Each structure stands twice: as structure tokens, then as C-alpha cells.
């Protein structure tokens, strides 16, 4: 029998996210952002991480503000609903709490960097970023002449993250996972990374997963650890389970404008919190109830019969 990979978030971060690791997070874009893992990384006071992801919403801001990060490879770092994110700005502009190196990608070039890692090639070509300052300043983007045509192209160097931390709606104990909704670059991130940690809303029997192998977009043999942690992505949404906590994003914007304010926020919502269960109890039943999905919309099944 295959061995269960279930461990706690605490254990998963302790074992697989080391000082200096490069970590792909927020790969689903605006949905399914794995805040619970970010908070555990902050609590374990990891340093010198390189964060990788096309768009981070607030997750990168929180990790940067907490001093865990020395480099960011991304296309967009901010608060998707409100604009700027203050900890990211303070780190780049004033080196507070520490200096970070920002390497600017576009969404497509970040997607291609991970796709190259997933395909096992050193680079992939693109027609994007020609003439831009991204191409000038990002050393992983390099202009070259097409070997098959008379065209300029840009070579996007492969990114192979040390770790990818990916929320999924459901998986079995060995990491065969069903996921759905907007996936961003998550599937390529899973394939490209050396270590994959899944954070599952539900752990389900293998038979449920194999009833629909077309939906098993991440396969167990790629996965090192499975963490079972419901609501791990709050305040971002998880399709079919809970909606976006819109007010969180405007409140965070107000509550973290100064460094002092951010430190207070961090004390309350991260350092003062033991684990995700504790976080959920602080969030409160009423909030949870208001975010929970109200109306199921089940997919019509398909038949794999023989």
C-alpha cells in the first residue's frame, strides 16, 4: 500500500522550507492564495527566501514585511483590489525591514519560466517583452535570433523552484489531487519544483480521485507532503468552498500603512496565532458563515465506463 504523506503545516514548513529556499507561492493568481503557509513560514522566522509567483496579492507583502524575503521574482506585487502594498514598497524603497532584490517578469514570461522547468528545457522562446525595460533589466530574459526564422525572440530561462506550496480542493493521502477553477501557473509550478507541498481543503479516498483521472492535475508521485488544513487560503477564495473576504483587503490596506501598524497587525494575526485552527477561531463563526458558499453548482459527471 502507498504510504500516507499527511503531515502538519508546522512540520511541512520545518522540513521543506529552509533559509535561502526559493519558493513558488500564489501561483493561482487571485484565488487560492496559501496564506496559512505564509504565516507558518513567518512564525518559523525563515530568512533569505526567494519568492516566485506571477501575482502575489497580499501574501508576498506579509512575508516581505516580516523579514523572511531577500528576493522576489514576480510580475506584480501589490493589493489586487487596492493597488500598492506598503511592506513591499518599504522594502524596495527604504530597505525596511531589509533590502530585497526585485526581478520583474511579465505574467507570460513567468508562466513560460515555470513551463520551461516543467518541460525540462533550459528556456522557452517568446515574442513578448521585446522593446521593454523588463527585457533590459531581468537577466533571465535574453534576446536571441530564432534558429528557424528571421525573427528576434526572447529566451525565458527556466525556473526550478526548491519548493512549491499549492492549495488544492481535494486529494488523497498520497497527493493525487483534484483542483479546479482558475489555475494560473500552478500545474507548471508543481511540475517544475523539486519539492511539492499540497494543502488540501479535503482529504478524500483514492477511489474518489481515480473516478476522474482527467481532473488529477497534480499526481501523487510529484508530491512530498500533504497538509490537511481547511480554509487555508482565507481571505482569498476557494471555488466551491468559500468566497473572497473583500473587506479584509481594504482593512489590511488601512491597518498596515506604517511600519508600526504592520507590526501590530503581524502580532495579532500571525505571531499571536498558534496554527490555522486558532486563526479560524479568531476570525469568528459569523465571518466564516458569511464567506462559506451559499449555493452549490455541481459539475455534470462524465462517463469513463467500459
Amino acid at each position: 500500500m502507498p504510504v500516507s504523506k499527511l503531515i502538519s503545516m508546522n512540520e511541512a514548513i520545518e522540513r521543506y522550507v529552509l533559509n535561502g529556499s526559493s519558493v513558488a507561492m500564489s501561483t493561482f493568481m487571485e484565488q487560492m492564495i496559501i496564506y496559512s503557509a505564509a504565516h507558518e513560514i513567518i512564525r518559523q522566522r525563515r530568512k533569505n527566501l526567494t519568492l516566485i509567483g506571477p501575482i502575489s496579492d497580499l501574501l508576498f507583502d506579509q512575508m516581505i514585511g516580516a523579514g523572511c524575503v531577500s528576493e522576489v521574482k514576480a510580475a506584480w506585487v501589490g493589493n489586487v483590489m487596492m493597488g500598492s502594498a506598503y511592506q513591499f514598497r518599504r522594502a524596495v524603497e527604504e530597505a525596511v525591514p531589509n533590502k530585497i532584490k526585485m526581478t520583474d517578469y511579465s505574467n507570460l514570461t513567468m508562466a513560460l519560466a515555470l513551463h520551461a522547468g516543467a518541460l525540462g528545457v533550459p528556456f522557452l522562446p517568446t515574442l513578448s517583452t521585446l522593446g521593454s525595460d523588463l527585457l533590459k533589466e531581468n537577466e533571465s530574459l535574453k534576446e536571441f535570433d530564432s534558429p528557424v526564422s528571421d525573427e528576434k525572440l526572447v529566451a525565458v530561462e527556466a525556473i526550478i523552484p526548491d519548493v512549491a506550496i499549492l492549495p488544492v480542493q481535494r486529494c488523497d493521502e498520497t497527493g493525487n489531487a483534484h483542483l479546479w477553477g482558475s489555475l494560473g501557473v500552478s500545474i507548471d509550478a508543481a511540475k517544475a519544483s523539486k519539492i511539492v507541498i499540497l494543502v488540501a481543503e479535503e482529504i478524500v479516498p483514492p477511489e474518489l480521485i481515480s473516478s476522474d483521472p482527467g481532473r488529477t492535475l497534480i499526481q501523487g508521485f510529484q508530491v512530498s507532503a500533504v497538509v490537511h488544513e481547511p480554509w487555508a487560503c482565507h481571505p482569498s477564495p476557494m471555488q466551491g468552498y468559500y468566497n473572497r473576504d473583500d473587506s479584509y483587503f481594504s482593512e489590511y490596506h488601512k491597518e498596515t500603512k506604517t511600519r508600526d501598524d504592520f507590526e501590530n497587525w503581524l502580532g495579532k494575526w500571525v505571531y499571536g496565532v498558534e496554527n490555522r485552527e486558532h486563526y479560524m477561531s479568531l476570525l469568528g463563526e459569523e465571518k466564516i458563515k458569511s464567506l462559506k458558499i451559499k449555493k452549490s453548482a455541481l459539475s455534470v459527471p462524465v462517463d469513463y465506463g467500459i
Partner: protein
Amino acid sequence: MAVEKKYRLRELMICAAAREISDGDIVFVGMRLPLIAFVLAKKVYAPNAVGLFENGIIRSTPSPSLIYTMGDTPNLIGATHTGEMLTVMAYLQQGKVSVGFLGGAEVDRYGNLNSTTVKSGDNEIRLPGSGGACDIASLAKKVLIIMSHEKDRFVKKVNYITSPGYGDGGEWRKSAGLRRGGPAAVISTKGIFDFSPDGLMQVRSIHPGLTANEVQDATGFDLPMPNEVAETQPPSEEELKVIREYDPAGFWTGWNSKKRGD
């Protein structure tokens, strides 16, 4: 002029953007105003337009309720496809996208956009960055820029080219290796602008109630101005109805907020 003063500037801009979408177009939909422009176009001008969202969503119908980010759960309900970013980005790179919308902190006279880093005196202010903007500017057949019109945002030369427009004019795009596209129009809070064959921004129309001088004063470079300047067509009753039904609280348009006049 029945609807005069009855609409917000942002609603006018949404209408101007929606009118640039033709039936059957494949549209790269951004958030904020372009999102509502897509909804408006679908309902009024372009019933068969298809919307691509860079997180991996494709829609042939507007989302059933207002969304604040493209990853919001209602954006998947009734979607044509939900999946990987590369799926929609590939259509963009193939040249199948007719229209893409962009904004930025700075635009220059050649339509180059900056959303990465700006100077403020001796300091550098870090902005969120490209997202998909550089890709849309590089790869869409046509780009529409939507901007707040201020003197320090309409600048001679952008501090950083996040999203290439016409570079420094002429054959610049071609020589940079860009195969198509470029900005077709700028829809600002003061007017609508397009580009000369050389890639220079010029006035197409000015929004109702503004003079040519006011627009030039709010611009950091010389704006070629025709002798007779057209006025931007205000929103129709039908257009306003669609916009307000989709965003009843005025979250993106501010139409029913107490503060008027943007």
C-alpha cells in the same frame, strides 16, 4: 443633452472603451473600468465578443454578479473555460486577441506605459509592476489605454517602459521585433486620443465641458490639436442602465457615491 451631469466621468470612459469593442472580438479583459466596458460591450455592441482573463478564465457572457478581482468565485459561474494562465496567454501570443486594455502610472507621447517605478523628486516610488501589461502591449492586435489625465502622468518620457507603445516613434516597434499591435487610443479623464502614423499621441475628442487648453495644461508634452476639436459622445441612457445594473453600488464607477466630479 438629457443625460448631461447625470453621469460620472468614469462612466463616460467605460462607454468610450466599450465602443472600441467590435462584435466577435476576442478581448483581454482587465479589472476595474475595462471589466465593466466588456460587460457593456457584450450587452450593447458586441454580443459575440469573448473575454479572456489572464488567470485562466474565458467567458462568453458577463459574470452573473460584480467582481472585485478576476479570481472572484462568480467569475467562474457560466464560464466558457477555466484553467491555466498559459492557455489564455497563448491565444494572446498567437495574435488572436483583438483588443487589450491597459493602464499605468505614466504614459508618454509615444504611448509607452510605466507601471513599474516612478521618480518623485530624488526618490523612486515602487509600483506593483507589469502583471500581464507588457504581454498585452507586446502581443495584442490593438491596445486601449485608460488613464487618469494629470500632468505628472502624461509625461515626455516614461521613467521605465513596462508596456511598449511606439517606443520613440516611426518604425521602432518593427525594429524592436514586435510583430503587431501598439496603442490604438488613450481614453483619459479628459479626452480620447489616438496616434499619428509616426506614433505620436494626438487629440481625437475632448470630454464634454473641457477646453482644448485645459487638456493641454494637464499634459506634460505638446498635444497636436485639430482646429476644430470634437466632443466625446456622452453615455446614452441605455449604456448607463447597463453599467449601473452591473455595479449598483458604484464600487468601480462611483456613480452613486455622494462625492461627485471625480
